[in-house]
């Protein structure tokens, strides 16, 4: 099977699984299974981070290998039951999203009795606190109807049960995929592609592919995983805003335009320049993604771990972020994976010594 098709199938598989922040296990297991053949060791940390460790060639001088961390958050946004009223479930958000996309969404409710389907509904105006004529109905007054009768609802669900989007991936032409949780499973797929390519490459650094938890809520995985790994360098892979209806301007890049390389205080300028140059050398399409303050990704906590970690941010363009109909291009996923593999293969044992500031050169 073509590598692109394999990655597409894997991506469709992992966006069909729930992995809400704090409840990543279903997706963690699927990712662990995909990484296992490509790495020397797979571990899960005590708070749920996934580590796929691929050792580099042993160094000639007997010193321990340098460590590169590839960080992708595995979690996605979702909801949690906040109140049960009659046969209706009311909910609170996990992660940030626009409630205006909710009415009519299919969801799965993960109860202790199993998974149950439901739809998010907007009730008739006379049943709300006010009619909300011509206005969005606020999130706390949207409800989930499971089609079950009141007694069954009482027996099945509890406040605190987790809710995930249920819509299945849609394959669009020219290798695009639409679905929920492509933020950030698209980047998980890119790391998987990187590990695939590394099978046929020599590298001197140890590579730690890290699936982080709870990026959407507390940056838990990004803040804690560097303490397990003690990386010399980190690449964070996340998604960025693709141009499209409702999204334009300096924060957006075109869909299918390749890797977007972040620059700004959150990222190391020398590494940014290095990656950009490598894209040019390899003819990989790329765009630049200004991050004047924080990038809002795992790069924020990773950079300030311990004595500080030099960090790179690579982003995959994605339309309609934090809706269940996000769109990405598999081509961009493949390019991002390829770029990382080529970068890793070029890392010399003494590369850290070259990470210097302009005024020190």
């Amino acid at each position, binding site marked *: 099977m073509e590598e692109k098709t394999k990655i597409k199938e894997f991506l469709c598989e992992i966006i069909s699984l729930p992995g809400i922040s704090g409840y990543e296990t279903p997706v963690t297991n699927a990712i662990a299974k995909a990484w296992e053949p490509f790495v020397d060791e797979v571990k899960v940390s005590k708070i749920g981070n996934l580590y796929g460790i691929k050792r580099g060639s042993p160094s000639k001088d007997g010193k321990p290998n340098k460590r590169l961390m590839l960080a992708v958050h595995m979690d996605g946004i979702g909801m949690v039951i906040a109140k049960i009223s009659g046969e209706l479930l009311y909910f609170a958000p996990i992660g*940030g999203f626009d409630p205006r996309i909710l*009415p*009519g969404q299919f969801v799965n409710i993960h109860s202790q009795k199993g998974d149950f389907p439901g739809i998010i509904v907007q009730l008739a105006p*006379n049943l709300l606190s006010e009619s909300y004529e011509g206005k969005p109905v606020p999130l706390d007054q949207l409800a989930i109807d499971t089609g079950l009768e009141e007694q069954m609802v009482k027996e099945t669900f509890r406040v605190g049960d987790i809710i995930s989007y249920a*819509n299945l991936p849609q394959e669009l032409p020219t290798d695009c995929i639409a679905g929920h949780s492509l933020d950030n499973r698209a980047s998980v797929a890119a790391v998987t592609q990187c590990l695939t390519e590394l099978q046929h490459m020599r590298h001197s650094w140890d590579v730690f592919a890290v699936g982080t938890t709870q990026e959407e809520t507390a940056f838990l995985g990004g803040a804690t995983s560097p303490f397990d790994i003690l990386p010399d360098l980190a690449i964070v892979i996340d998604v960025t*805003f693709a141009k499209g209806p409702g999204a334009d301007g300096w924060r*957006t890049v075109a869909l299918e335009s390749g890797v977007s390389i972040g620059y700004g205080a959150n990222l190391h300028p020398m590494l940014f320049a290095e990656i950009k140059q490598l894209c040019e050398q390899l003819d990989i399409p790329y765009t630049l993604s200004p991050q004047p303050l924080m990038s809002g990704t795992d790069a924020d906590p990773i950079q300030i771990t311990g004595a500080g970690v030099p960090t790179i941010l690579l982003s995959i363009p994605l339309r309609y972020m934090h809706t269940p*109909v996000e769109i990405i291009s598999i081509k961009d996923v493949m390019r991002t994976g390829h770029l990382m593999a080529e970068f890793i293969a070029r890392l010399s044992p003494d590369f850290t010594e070259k990470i210097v500031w302009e005024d020190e050169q």
Partner: protein
Amino acid sequence: MNNTNDQLIDLPVLTDEMIGLLETLSNIAGVSGNEIAVRSIIRDSITGFVDELHTDALGNLIALKKAKVEKPLKVLIAAHMDEVGFMLVEKESDGIFRFKVIGGIDERALAGKPVQVGKKQKPGVIGACPVHLSTREERERILSVDTLRIDTGPGTSEIQPGEYATFATKFIRMGQSVCGKALDNRIGVATLIELIKNCPENIELIAAFTAQEEIGLRGATVAPFRYDPDVAFVIDCTPANDQPAWDQSENTHYKTKLNQGPAIYASDGRTMYDHRLIRYLTSLCENYAIPYQIRQPGPGGTDAGAIHLSKNGIPTASVSVPGRYAHTAAMIVRIADWEKHFQLMTAALAHLHADILKADR
């Protein structure tokens, strides 16, 4: 039930085949003005069971099943086969289309949904601005259809303005309920198909699968002309807004309630229903111990609004299946309500005779 056919018949039960037929009918697209796919399935289902079959100038599919007696009562049963949906009206850029809503869909239920476009039901989405790029003030306004687009992905040159689209909802069972798009009124269509197959021999049945109900009862306006019916029944779906109110006050404007059986109309926004027929239907329910409810009089209406005004007037009744969230991506109907509705309509045909219409109005 007075002088003829007094003996109670065995009532049919809802079979898995009928639910399977509903699933097929729910998943296909038949937006008002473009009912072709629905019509084909109906035609395939009833050919061989009827004596005449015509598609008229508006797209109504009208079947005649002759009686085996002289001068039979001519009974029209109408079920609309169209659904609300969208039409692509302008190609804005590669794969991105402006669209208009066909029928009464609340704009607030559009954003962030998967859709299917054209005859081949190609995938697309209605995206929404990423929450990160919108302001709080913007999120207090609704995402109007003028600002939304249908996105079929880059490189979809075969999709052109003029194509119809619907929500990409797949029918599912939910415990005691079914859930899908266009249950309003594919439930009526599935019921009418069964009624044709089991029609009593003393009745001439005119089965009208009407077009364009959702955009002004246009099919039903012309459907009665071909065969001159003596009496008409309209079968459709009607809203059940019977959920608990936000402030827990008594819900007095529920229209209909789930689990209370078929909803018989007394009056609505367009029709004062023939009370001889209302009495006939309610007494049948009582004799058969079929639960029933009178739909709360008020605005709204069915094909009856056009049919009772046809020619020199047709005594007309409406019997609907109660359901929640009509005209959204997914509607919920209790299977038991559908079964009771099917049983009532079966009994109504079995006991129907001309004397009912000889009583005083």
